[in-house]
């Protein structure tokens, strides 16, 4: 996986671009999507809570890496959506969208055998070919993510400052 900052910047950029077409996708819902971008990396909890300890407690093998898959993020997005007082379906959609962008970004990183991780689990164990675009420690990945997010931020600010076509029509009508 890339470091988390690149993932969150890309999730924010993708959802912000989507918000230019979707009126309901306001910054508060983009923020929910950004939290979704964190979900796949919750398997990193293994750093603080050894999987072996969990397996010993359960009495069966257990791997937190299940979280870093399609099935894992669907369930986590579902759990997250249940913590919202209203609009749980929309919360689920945004949490899942953020997590999915994260998984897609990971799907193009380098593997020595040229095939990506089994991230489509549990639907399939298929490992699709990867273009081997990057490894997680590449500082260039973070630089590129900052660049993309920066461009989207500037364009987004300009769009917010500039009145949209509906507002312009209303102004002309009032005149």
């Amino acid at each position, binding site marked *: 996986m890339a470091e988390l900052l690149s993932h969150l910047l890309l999730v924010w950029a993708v959802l912000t671009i989507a918000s230019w077409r979707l009126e309901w996708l306001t910054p508060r819902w983009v923020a929910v999507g950004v939290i979704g971008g964190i979900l796949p990396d919750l398997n990193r909890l293994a750093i603080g809570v050894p999987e*072996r300890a969990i397996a010993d407690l359960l009495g069966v093998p257990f791997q937190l890496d299940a979280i870093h898959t399609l099935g894992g993020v669907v369930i986590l997005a579902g759990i997250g959506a249940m913590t919202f007082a209203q609009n749980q379906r929309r919360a689920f959609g945004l949490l899942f969208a953020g997590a999915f962008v994260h998984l897609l970004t990971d799907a193009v990183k380098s593997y020595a055998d040229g095939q990506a991780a089994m991230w489509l689990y549990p639907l399939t164990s298929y490992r699709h070919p990867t273009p081997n675009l990057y490894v997680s420690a590449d500082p260039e990945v973070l630089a590129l993510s900052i660049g993309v997010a920066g461009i989207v931020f500037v364009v987004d600010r300009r769009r917010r400052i500039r009145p949209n076509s509906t507002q312009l029509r209303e102004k002309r009508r009032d005149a």
Partner: protein
Amino acid sequence: MRLSVRLAIAVVLCLALGGLGVHYAVSYDDRWPYPTENTLADDYGDHIGEETLVFGRVTAIDTAADELTLEAEADDGTRLEFVADDVPTDGGQPAVQEGGFVQVYGTLEPDGEIATSETVVVNPNARSETYKLAVSAIALLTGTAYFFVHWRPTLAGWEVRRG
């Protein structure tokens, strides 16, 4: 949706997540196309001549012999040592240092040796992991702060922060 219903669904989903983690672990060795560290820890000899993809920490580099020694770990903590017959280079220098992390794809040979087809340097040195953790910690803090700008916790769940 009522709070009690949401709580019930969340409990069911937490159980499903636990089940997924167990199934993932139990089925992993069958789903992964190469012998895993667990398999190799149990019966290395049965897999000699097979293709493998090993993830491990670099413990030694011998540029004269063009050999990279790496250590991988099975789920039960058993440590496995492999020697790959390729030291990846960058500008004439080894692209990885001791403490770095690599993927090695190749064919298993006796005594932990791997006839290497391809090596990917994941972490060039031990500091790379610290870099990733530090940057990820910054992301976790800023991402959470961004969320809290728009949402506030209440007893009924997250609600829009107004004003």
